[in-house]
């Protein structure tokens, strides 16, 4: 290790840069031919934050006679920072291109040191990859990617199911603690928002229905309208959309943050299967709470419908109750119940998958959360359409 007794020497350099304030003014330079040499005079304060910085033109050394050195005069140089170095670097590159001999040693030592750190060759911007519009390739790639994705999600679902069976026989890798915390986040914590939204949806249905039904003096059928709409469609879909935004987004953000912190890697190294340790409790929590939230949503929605009917229409509470029971065969509930179970599993699996697939930066966490919500909502509505077709075919 070389001895480092250069405090004094270094102090002198610094004073030169920071304390010298005898010359002030804008940064300037000029080229001055002299006998046997060319002098570059630097003057003024070269401070980047003060704004204007001079450039060194590419043709700057055109008039320098061949073989004569270029020297620097820094007597009038005031304070300077890296903006001067930037100028000198440019000048050095130009000198190199024009084969001009530069006497760097006539510069202040601190500037020379910095200049020496810089690479000789100017940076060449990397060429952008050519971008061509290829519709067939794009569509093909999209299809392949989508199929691949469907395969991955199914595979993950299968792995989670295997983990579930293993858990049932008592050899699973899922911790009850995780399942409980996921259950409480997806269940009780969501009651309020699910309740509010379904109450309002029920109320809105009653409003909309009452306008038409009142014309036919069929006010009482508002009850069946609200009941059937809530139980068949609205409660399941609204609850699923809320859970996709609320819990699905949270799962994706959590798992992608774990990905960014190499926590997933650590799990894998220990041989803890991600599918049953992380994904299974999340999916189970959603698949378990979603049907319950659906039933709760139905009830609250009908309450909202009753609230509006009672205030606006000539309907007795008992009549409303009776009509609701009349309109609702039990299999309607079964249908909605199965739907919400599927929605819950779907949201859980896709959002976990999106989180696992995310990149490793802060921006990627945001992208993953957004994507989980979008895919969750669109997927729920698409699945609902599929269910509608199936229901039509089998005649429920």
């Amino acid at each position: 290790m070389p001895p480092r007794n250069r405090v004094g020497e270094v102090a002198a350099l610094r004073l030169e840069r920071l304390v010298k304030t005898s010359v002030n003014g804008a940064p300037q330079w000029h080229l001055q031919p002299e006998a046997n040499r060319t002098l570059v005079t630097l003057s003024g304060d070269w401070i980047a934050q003060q704004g204007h910085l001079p450039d060194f033109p590419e043709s700057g050394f055109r008039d320098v006679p061949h073989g004569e050195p270029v020297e620097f005069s820094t007597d009038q140089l005031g304070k300077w920072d890296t903006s001067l170095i930037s100028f000198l670097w440019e000048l050095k590159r130009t000198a190199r291109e024009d084969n001009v001999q530069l006497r760097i040693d006539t510069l202040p030592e601190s500037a020379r040191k910095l200049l020496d750190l810089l690479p000789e060759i100017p940076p060449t911007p990397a060429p952008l990859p050519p971008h061509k519009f290829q519709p067939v390739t794009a569509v093909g790639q999209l299809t392949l990617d989508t199929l691949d994705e469907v395969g991955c999600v199914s595979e993950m679902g299968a792995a989670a199911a295997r983990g579930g069976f293993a858990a049932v026989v008592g050899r699973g890798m899922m911790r009850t603690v995780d399942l409980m915390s996921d259950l409480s986040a997806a269940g009780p914590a969501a009651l309020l928002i699910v309740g509010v939204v379904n109450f309002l949806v029920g109320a809105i249905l009653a409003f909309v229905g009452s306008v038409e039904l009142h014309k036919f003096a069929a006010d009482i059928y508002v009850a069946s309208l609200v009941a059937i709409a809530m139980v068949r469609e609205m409660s399941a879909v609204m609850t699923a959309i809320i859970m996709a935004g609320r819990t699905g987004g949270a799962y994706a953000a959590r798992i992608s943050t774990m990905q960014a912190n190499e926590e997933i890697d650590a799990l894998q190294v220990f041989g803890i299967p991600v599918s049953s340790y992380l994904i299974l409790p999340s999916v189970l929590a959603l698949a378990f709470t979603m049907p319950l939230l659906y039933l709760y949503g139905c009830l609250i929605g009908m309450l909202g419908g009753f609230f509006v009917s009672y205030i606006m229409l000539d309907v007795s509470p008992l009549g409303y109750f009776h009509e609701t029971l009349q309109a609702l065969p039990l299999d309607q509930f079964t249908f909605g119940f199965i739907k919400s179970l599927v929605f819950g599993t779907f949201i859980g699996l896709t959002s976990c998958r999106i989180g696992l697939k995310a990149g490793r930066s802060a921006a990627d966490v945001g992208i993953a959360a957004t994507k989980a919500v979008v895919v969750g909502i669109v997927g729920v509505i698409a699945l609902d359409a599929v269910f509608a077709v199936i229901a039509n075919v089998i005649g429920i």
Partner: protein
Amino acid sequence: MNNQMPSTDDRPVMIDVNDVTLAFGPRVIQHDVSFQVRRGSIFAVMGGSGCGKSTLLKSMIGLLRPTHGTYMVQKDNYWAGDDDSRVRIGRRFGVLFQSGALWSSMTVGENVALPMQMFTKLEPHVIRQLVELKLGLVGMLHAIDQYPSELSGGMRKRAGLARAMSLDPDILFFDEPSAGLDPITSARLDELILNLRDGLGATIIIVSHELSSLFHIADDGIFLDADQKTAIAHGSPTWLRDHCTDPTVHAFMHREQLDSSSSHGNG
């Protein structure tokens, strides 16, 4: 007890920390820490893991308010002023975080450019030029259009250094600059720090426990102790190694096991 390096340094004082106490709620991390950093020196904050080195650094860069004491940056009392004055003083700071802390959604070039875009009125091509210069100084010009996630640890550190220098600060703070780097990369970073100090005339404060690197670059320093929760020795790492008689400091500097019976009670 010999734990104070005799000072012959007559350079002007850049930073003066006086009786600073740092605490999280009722838990005191360090108390009554005092030291001065002179302009152009490379000042090492040393100490074992968990002694509060990084906490001290946090309070010096404005992330944690000390519960007691004054922190002067030249003539400005940093914590006494309002937010605006802290921002104004903070504009003189450049900080290299432990893992680089590069903004992951931006390329390396954009990371270095952002402070300039926010705080100066420079034209885009001038900013580009200065960004190239700063990345050139740390040898990272080739990575200007890469994202932080594509870089290795050492490259992130160097890119972080370029970003710290973005606004030409005259005080640079480095948190564990050589942690996690191989010896060659670490030595190269040390050399770079020395060159930048000489070239830019900056004052540098380093939090580290990498002995070889500290002996090489630091010319002054302070040793914080986790048990006594205060500074137990002042001086350059080499001086502390060769002359300090405090058992904790001696053990630290010589990579020895501390005999627990002698470590307490005589700081």
